[in-house]
């Protein structure tokens, strides 16, 4: 697959079809793959594909707006939904992107892997897909870890192969399936079941820990605003100090802004340096949007986003 990817990208660059290609390369840390921007054929061999490519690269296509030509990008099925939303929200034109589709068999969640192995992730030197599990090498030893233990949360919910046609595919792209008893909104429902005071205590503790590094915002494909509300100076909404009240505002406002946009790519939670379970916050919004307005972000090009739309017979508890 990796060879095929490199071959395709080499061709794209040789033909001048793209200014650069956005994919993954091996980091100096063996346990992860990181974004990679290839503009020269000589660099193509850096490109990798494997089970450590969980990151959603979609945000990087926005830079194409500053370019004359196109950018190429490697997109997993789940990532295409971000592109659909970006096109729908007029942030990028479809023809600025050359989308390469790749059949994905599930991606590894580093934090889960660390827990499953009981050793620091840094000691992992190789991870390979082996059908129902991942072959993980630590030092001299290679062992098989069952997928259901270490997959990213979003992989359990993989049900759509892709949301728009790719320009090139590296094989037949089908949704990844796994036999695992994980509810669609399990983490959200678990929290919903708690008494309200406990929910308050839970989230207060999470927000208190936030250092407001803004990584969740910057990594989010949907946070494309030229000037974020939180950066506005006159009037200033959010005070700079990371006090609990400000952090709470930051996360809740982000959550409502993502209503109808969040595609559950998991970037926010992946990048959070203090392990705030942001996924559980945005999943809640997704769940409500689905239940109340029967809408799922990133699925179709021509549906109207839920908050710029209404039905005369929407629920009305406000009479």
């Amino acid at each position, binding site marked *: 697959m990796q060879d095929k990817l490199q071959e395709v990208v080499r061709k794209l660059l040789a033909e001048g079809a793209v200014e650069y290609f956005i994919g993954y390369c091996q980091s100096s*840390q063996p346990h992860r793959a990181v974004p990679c921007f290839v503009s020269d054929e000589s660099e193509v061999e850096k490109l990798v594909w494997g089970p450590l490519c969980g990151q959603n690269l979609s945000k990087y296509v926005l830079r194409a707006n500053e370019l004359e030509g196109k950018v190429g990008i490697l997109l997993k099925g789940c990532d295409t939904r971000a592109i659909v939303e970006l096109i729908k929200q007029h942030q990028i034109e479809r023809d600025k992107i050359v989308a390469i589709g790749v059949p994905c068999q599930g991606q590894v969640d580093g934090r889960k892997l660390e827990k499953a192995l009981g050793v620091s992730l840094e000691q992992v030197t190789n991870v390979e897909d082996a059908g129902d599990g991942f072959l993980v090498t630590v030092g001299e030893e290679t062992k098989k870890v069952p997928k259901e233990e270490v997959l990213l949360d979003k992989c359990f919910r993989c049900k759509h192969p892709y949301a728009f046609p790719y320009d090139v595919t590296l094989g037949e792209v089908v949704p990844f399936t796994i036999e695992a008893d994980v509810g669609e909104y399990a983490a959200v429902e678990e929290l919903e079941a708690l008494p309200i005071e406990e929910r308050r205590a839970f989230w207060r503790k999470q927000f208190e820990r936030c250092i407001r590094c803004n990584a969740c915002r910057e990594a989010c494909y949907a946070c494309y605003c030229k000037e974020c509300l939180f950066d506005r100076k006159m009037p200033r909404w959010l005070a700079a100090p990371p006090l609990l009240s400000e952090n709470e505002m930051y996360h809740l406002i982000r959550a409502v802004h993502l209503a109808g946009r969040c595609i559950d790519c998991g970037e926010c939670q992946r990048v959070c340096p203090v392990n705030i379970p942001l996924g559980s916050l945005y999943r809640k919004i997704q769940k409500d949007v689905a239940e109340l307005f029967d809408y799922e972000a990133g699925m179709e090009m021509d549906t109207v986003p839920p908050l710029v739309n209404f039905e005369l017979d929407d629920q009305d508890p406000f009479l």
Partner: protein
Amino acid sequence: MDRKKISKSDLGQWLDKIAEEYELIGPAEEDEVVQFRPVKSSSELTLDYANSLLPPKSLFFPPVEELFSYQKRGEEIKLEQTKPLEKDRVVVGIRKCDVESLLLLDKVFCEDLVDAAYKERRDRTALIGLACPTPPRAACFCTSFDIDPLSPEGTDILLRDVGEAYLVDVATEKGQELVGLAGKLFSKLTKKEAEELQPPPVDMPKMDLSELGEKLEGMWEDPLWDKLSLPCLGCGICTYVCPTCHCFDIADVGSTSDGVRYRCWDSCMYKDFALMTSGVNPRATKAERARNRYFHKFSTFPSRYGTGYACVGCGRCLVHCPGGVEITEVMQEILAKEGAGE
């Protein structure tokens, strides 16, 4: 310097003794994040750790702190300063890289115009270092900056793991005093032990950085900065987890009659960091901001304060960067430049 040892099983007892008289601070794990925080008892500590998420600079230069509060009543305004510390403190478990970073931050905050709160926190805090484990984290590269992870320099006491016990290097009078709180728990080394008890050396790849600053100076206009701006997402993680970064913001929170002026961490990687009211932004692009940061670390901080490079090789930024930017790779690229800086 005085060298003793303490058995691992006695360490907790000593630290608890310290906690009776001082505020004891050390690495503690919560929600899978290791952070330095005050503890009531040594049992809350996680000394078996690689390094904390946020560097212990946060104990001296907190992520958010009150500079003063203000209160306006009629025509009168009352400004009230907050005391930086209630009690003298002892920090246990600090790594050598972070100790070095404090020496760099001292240049910023304790020289020229002295930041009194920072200085008070430094003066009233004793450091008990903990030498790094073997092997160190894959991301560590402190030796490239000629930092010896086993040296007690900058600490009051350095603990070194030798299996059943810790070797205790007491470097200062303050350290003697702390050991004296439970002197019985410590024993002198026999001659044999003094020769044989050696912590394993900490091995990590070492880069030759002697030309780094010089080469960088010739790279103001270099395509490298643009290249770095591609993966960079523009978040502030690298600067927040960096033990030597010291940018901050000052902001009032409250109304015009009652409130607090805070100082909080800020990041030169944020796009509005240097934005002027006039609308001019001297570092408007990610490339310019990245250039500024690396120049600051490897060229302008050293030349301003007369120090070595303002990086201590803790590796936090390269572990946590969500875009996968690695400072070690950047350094390699700079070093690989032909003819630059000549």
